[in-house]
Each structure stands twice: as C-alpha cells, then as structure tokens.
C-alpha cells in the first residue's frame, strides 16, 4: 500500500505504526511521543498527524476506540490491528532496504 518513493508520507506511516505497536495511544499522546523519540530531527506538524492517522485507520492497519485518557477525559485511542502489524513488518523491511541502499551509495568513494 505504501509507496516507497513517497519518502515523507511513507516514513510518517512507519513511525506511527511503530509507536502504536508499542502501546495504544491517543492523538495527543502520539504527537508527544513522536517528539520524544525523534527529538527535533523529524518535524511532524500537528496538522498532518490527524489526516495520516485517519488514513491508516481507513486502510485497516490501526483501529480506534474511545476511552478515558490519563486525565480522565474521553479521547480516541488508536491501536495496531493484525493487518497493521504485518504492514509494519513490511514497511520496516522496506525502510531497512532503502536506508541500506542509500547508505551504500553515500559511502561510495569519490573518484
């Protein structure tokens, strides 16, 4: 489903799937976690987070559930589906291949 050439989109999907693989989270928490794990290198605006989440949900890779949040308010929690886990493996493998290849190219000795 993901297009390996669409780097940013594909990367965001991969990041989201990976984060949700660790534990179910709501949108706000996901944005916090994203900042936390990637520091300031990967800038994901709040604006692009939700369309991406909704797309993943519509693809059937993640599923949503309304639950009480840590501060006891109703929030939408996303978790990975079986399909999403498979997708994560696939995208992780794609990413590994791609980054290996690019690393390989970058390290070529210049003549």
């Amino acid at each position, binding site marked *: 489903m993901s297009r390996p050439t669409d780097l940013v989109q594909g990367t965001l999907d991969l990041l989201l799937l990976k984060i949700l693989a660790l534990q179910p989270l709501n*949108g706000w928490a996901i944005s916090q976690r994203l900042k936390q794990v990637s520091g300031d290198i990967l800038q994901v605006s709040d*604006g*692009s987070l*939700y369309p991406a989440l909704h797309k993943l*949900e519509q*693809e059937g890779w993640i599923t949503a559930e309304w639950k009480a949040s840590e501060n006891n*308010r109703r929030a939408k929690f996303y978790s990975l589906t079986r*399909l999403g886990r498979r997708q994560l493996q696939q995208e992780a493998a794609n990413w590994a291949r791609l980054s290996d290849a690019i690393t390989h190219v970058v390290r070529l000795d210049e003549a």
Partner: protein
Amino acid sequence: MRIEHWFYKLPLRLRSLFSRRRVENDLDDELQYHLEQKTEEHISRGLTPGDARLAALREMDGLTQRKEECRDARGVAFIEHTLQDIRYALRVLARSPGFVAVAVVTLALAIGANAVVFGLLNGLVLRPLNVPRAETLWGTTYGEGSGWQSYPNYIDLRDRNRTFESLAAWSFTFAGLDAGKEPVISTGYAATGNYFDVLGVRPYVGRFFHASDERGPGSAPYLVLSYACWHARFQDDRKVVGRTIKLNKHPFTVIGVAPPGFQGTLMFGIPDFFMPIVNKEQVDGGPELQNRGTDQVIFEAFGHLKPGVTPAQAEADANAVGSYLRKIYPRESGTHRTTLSKPGLNAFTRPVRAFVGGLMALAALILLAACANLGNLFAARAADRSREISLRLALGSSRSRILRGLLTEATLIALAGGAIGLWISVALLHGLSVWQPFQGAPLHLPVAPDANVYVAALGLSMLSGFLFGIVPVRQVLRADPYQIVKSGSSLPAGRRITVRDLLLAAQIAICAVLVTSSMVALRGLSRSVQSKIGFDPRNTMLAATNLAMAGYGNDTLTAMQKRMIDALKTIPGVQDAGLVNNYPPLVYTAAFRKAIYREDAADLKPASAAAWPYFYDVSPGYFRAARTALLAGRDFTWHDGGAAPPVAVVNRDFARSMFGSVTEAIGRYYKAQDGARVQVVGVVESGKYLSLTEDQQPAIFLSFLQAPMSATYIVVRSTRDPQQLASAMRNKIHELDAGLPVDTQSWSTMLDVVMFPARMATMALGVLGAMGAMLSITGIFGMAAFSVSRRLKELGIRMALGGQRREVLQAALGRAFKLLALGSAAGLILGIMASQLLAYIVYQATPSDPLVLTGVVLVMALVGLLATWIPAQRALSLDPLTLLREE
C-alpha cells in the same frame, strides 16, 4: 489478504457514509481534545489562555483544511460529492417545477416511443426461435419471396443438398378438432416426420412423431398438441396421450404434448396441434402430396447448417439443386430462386424488418428532437443562471464541479423521464403481446418486454441525458465571472447565429419530417380505403366451410356446395349468393398464381409463360354477389361443368395484356399449364387480389364445377343485420348437415386483416407525427418565451418610445418565426425524400401530393401560432412603466 483488508475497511466506509454526523462529531471531539491539551501546555509555559489557544490553532496549520483532509482519507468523497450534487440538483429543480414537468414529459414520450419500437425489434427480429442451437438454424424461402413449394421438390432438396444436416418442412393446416364434443376449427402445423428432431425440441408429455413413422400418404395418424391447446382445451390432462381425436372426421391418436416454450416455427402465431404432413391431404383435402406441379404443400423448409458451412454456401447449394430439378422436370419446376433466412419470420422477414427498421429510424428522430429540445431548455436555463454560476466561480468553485452539477440535473431528468417512458412502454408491450386483432386467426406478437428492453431504455435515457446535458458546457466554460457579475446577465450581443438557434432549427426540421411522413401515411391509407378493389365488401357475409371436415368425397363436393348456395339464397333478405374456392380476394393475403401460355405456345415451361395471373374458382352468381361488374361476355352457368369445354372469365387487365382489349378477348383462347385450351367467355373489372398496395394484376376466374375443392367461401349479400344473418346462415347449413363446422364473418372484417399492416403503419406514423408536432410546440414555445423574457427591458423601452404592436412582436418573435420557417422547409424536403421509404408499407405513398404539402405547411404554421401565442401575449401586455421602474 484482500478479503481481510475489506473486513476492516468496509464497516468504516459504511460508517462514514451512513452515520456521517457521528463520524463528524468524533472528528471534532478528537481535534478539540488535541487543541485543549496543546493550549494547556502553552498556558503552563506562561502564555495567556487566549494566546495559548491561538498558538495551538496555528500549529494545526489550518484546522478546517485538516478536517477536510481527514474526510478525504475516508475514501468516500466521490460518493459524498455525488450525493451533494444530487441533493443540490433536486433543490434547484424543485424551484422550477414547470420546467421539470415539460422536460420529463418530453423525454418520457421520446423514451417510451423508442422502448416500444425496440421491444418490437427485440421480439420480432433480434430474438431467435426458442429452440436449441438457433444460431445455425436456417430456413429456405423458395420462390418469389415466399417459401411455398411442392412436397416432391422438398424431398429432392432434402436428399440432394450437401450443406444441411437434415431438412425439415412444415405447412399450415386448418381442421375441425373433435375431442368428443362439437368440432372446433383449429390451426395446426402439418410437419415432416423429422420436424421435432431437426429442431431438437423435447416433448413435454408423451412422445413426438419421427421420420420412421412416415410410410407414405396417410400412414401416420398421430397428433401432437401444443401446450397452449393442451392447457386450454384438455385442462392439462396427461391421460390425453393415447386418446383418439378426430380431425375433420379422421381419427388421430394423440401421442404427445409440446413444451410450453415452443410455439411452432412462425413468430406470430401459436398452433393448436402438429400432425405429420403425410396425412395432410387426407385431412383437409388440400393439394396432392405427390404432385410436383403444385407449390402449395410446403410453406417452409429449414434445418441446421453442417459445421463450417456458411449461409451463402448453403444458398448456392440449394439453388444448384433447384437448377437440377428444373432440368429434370421443366414443366413442373418454376424458375424459383432459393434464399436463406432465419426461420421464425420466413417470407415476412423483409417486410417486418423494413417496417421495424423504419419505425426505429423515426423513433430515433423523435429522441434526437427531444434531446435538441431539452438541450435548448438547458442552455436557456444556464444563461438564466449565469449570475449564480459566476458567483459560484468567483467564490472559488471549480468549473468541473459546476458542470458536474448541471450534468447531475440532466441525468436526474433523464432518469425520471426514462423511468416513466419505460413504464408506459412496458404497459403497451404487454398489451400488444396479448392482443388478438382478428378473431379466428391465432395471431400473437411475441413482444413481451424482457431485460433487453429495460437495459435499452435505461441506456437511451442516460445517453440522451448526457446529450442534452452537454449543450450548456461551453457556456459555462467560457463564462467570465467578472464580466457577468459586473454587467448583469445580458448576452454578448453580435453573434448572429447561436448554437441554440441551430438546435432549434434542426429540431423543427426533424419534427417536420415526422409530420410529413405521418401525413403521407394518412393520405395513403385514405386512398387505399377509397381505391377500387373490384368488388364491394359492404353488406356481405362470408360463410367458410370445408366439406372435408364432414367427410365428403371429391365426387359429392359440388352437389353439396350447390345445395348450400341454394339454401342460403332462401334466407329472407338475401339478394345474392355465390361461391369461391379457397379464399375470396383480399382474405388472409392468400391468393395463388399459375403460369398460362398463349394459344400457340408449344413449349409449356414456366420460363416461357405469357402471364402469371391470380386464379379463382367461382360459382355462377359469384360476380353478382360480390358486385364485380361484368364488362363483356357472360357469367358462368351451371352447365359449365366437368364434361363441358373449359371456359374462363378474365379481368380487364388480363384481357388488355393478352388480347389487346376487353371486347377482343371474348371467344379467344389461352393455354393452361396442362396444355388444355381455355376459352374466354367473359371479362370482369380488375381489382385487388393479394393486397391493397399491389399494382393492377391479371386474374382468371374458372368454373368451380370444373375444379372441385372442399374448402370454400360462400359470399352472401344482404342488407339484414349481420348478427341475425350470420346465425340464419349457420342454421340453414346445419339443416343440410348438422356436423359441418361453419365460420361466418363479414367480408369487411376479413379485409381488416389485409388492411392491418397499413393501419398499423399509419397509426404508428400518426402517433410519431403528433409527438413531433408536440415537440416543435414545446421547442418554439421555450425559445420564444425565453427571448421575450430576455428582452423585456428592450421591449419596454420600445413601447415607451411609441413602438407599434407589430414592431414589438417582430422584435420579440421574429427570430422564432424565421427559425420555424427555415426548419419546416428543410424538414418538408427531407420528409418528401424519406417518404420513398414509406412506399414499402403504405399504399401509394406519393409525397408530391398537393394535399400533403398544404397539410404539412398548415400544421407547421399552426404549431408556430400555438407555440408563440403565450409569449406574444406577454410581450404585448407589457406595461413599460412598471417594467422600467423594476429595473
């Protein structure tokens, strides 16, 4: 994988579509939660609540746009947009109910007409016979457009051809079917033994007859009932198999019942029974089976082509057999050509195809005219709505979205019109398929609508919706919101001829074609009603009897027939009575021709025939009863019997072509096929014999005493009430023989059968012409009303400045009238050219008839007057003061 995928996706898609509000609320809540958290975070960093909220919103990078992206992610945007378009279109259309009503009715009529005609095409031409492997089944039409041939001829064709797997044949037979009660005159097929085997039809009950059952004339007294007959007359009784039933007093054993879907091999008739053709002569006393000279035994021979054989090869093969037969039997075999056609219509294939094809063309014209009409209306509406459209464009709507909206409106109207049209046509087709236009003749039109008709109607309405929907496209694409909003909705003046003018002119032309053809048809019909047919059908009752049905032998026929004539003459009020063998002229389009030769001809083969006149065997007094004028010589007498020298009464046409004139013909001779010299003793007026549309044809009348035949009609002339007369006639004949079935009908009623195609054609053309006229009215009305409302201001100023009524009218409606005149002229010329085609179905379809020309001009002028009446009134009743104040 894919299925599992949809297992997750589908509920979400459905939820997005059907619980839209909840999904939207969820989206709001989710984003709201995020914003609140973010705001709190900013507050905790020291921002004021207001600034914190603004900062949170900024980081969202456009909340509304993000929401829209989330909606797009749902993957149902296309459906949602379409639904929105439909809702919007419905709202817009609801605001102009008059426009919608006119558009829907116009389209319903056009689609309805097309669906009915397509139903005819589908039932009569496209649908094959309901038998296995129908695609390789071909019938042979042998001779001049009909399949009639002799039985020995068929046998030779069957055994000598190399292209058919096997060849079966059949003919009609009419017989009194006696199942213990009173005999009922029934229609059946006399079929060869291999008939059912060649068709591959399986019996419903019992068994069918086979080739092995035939062992010479009269050897196979077996009867197969059609399902319809079994159901209606034997109440589905399976024990009927094995019973003995009498056909014209001859015992037959019922051996089986045909399946319900099988209705014989002619599309528009359902037979009551099937019997072996080897027993036909025995039953109905028809022409001899073994006589090669008669071509009245086999109606159609058909069979499956061998694998790989093309119809052209089979045709050449059959013709090769034909030439061979002509060489061996030069006397009996005519110079007929065999052509191949699909069985089911046989000899009727060409006329039916021409008729249905012509109707298709005219119905398509109606649809085109309706589309032009609606396209015009839509363009006018788009022009009226140019302000709204520019406003939407200015507010950022895309042109494609606006076009989608317009197309949605067109499609909605098309679907509504199509649905109503289909509903009308389905009702009509159902009516047609159970219609029995003639009592006694089991006519049946297999045109009940099926899936093909529904699909065609739906497709046509979608297509027409698209056709008229795209008319305003260019208008929208070229619309310049800035200009239109600034200067109001005035049209860019200067373009002299617009697309809409062309559309209207084309539409009027099409409608004028339709009006012209219906006029030509009407005129043709009225002519054929008034034309001289050589006898007077009014005040005559026909009594049809077949003495074979009561077991009379050939030697007793004429004596009994003379007794019947004399008995009928004794009925009070009866003026004359006379008999004719087989059928009287113009009944059941059944007339027979034979070759005759000049007196000195030595070589009697069909190629050297002097004429092919129609032949009738009549009794003395027939001419008087039929009111056929005797021009010279004498009528037959009761002395022109078997032993007397053969004599003939000929018609004027024959007398002229053979002997030069009426008076010269008397006393002269011609030679019959068998070589006998026949003397002409009388000349009668010419008439119509086979059909009303035929040209003048030669005809010969012989004495029935010299050609005894069991099947006859007695013409009884009387001014008495037909009902009373008919029952008096039946009583008289039953006094002579209580067991003889009699069928009485007036000659005029029987003529209806002959008139049927012309009547149908005229009716169809009349309906189409009326629809054409209606379409022109709505088209011109739309254009005139639009042009008046468009120029209200200008007209008001003209009137305020003292313009005369005439000038105002000219300004308002001049264009509409010009287009009407142009379109009508073009249509009239086209119509005259097209009515050459009508000559196929309509009697004397001569378009250069001044009455037709004036008629068309009058109708179109009336149409123009009607259509412009209301707009003209509106233009004239303008009050310049009110108008100018309003602007």
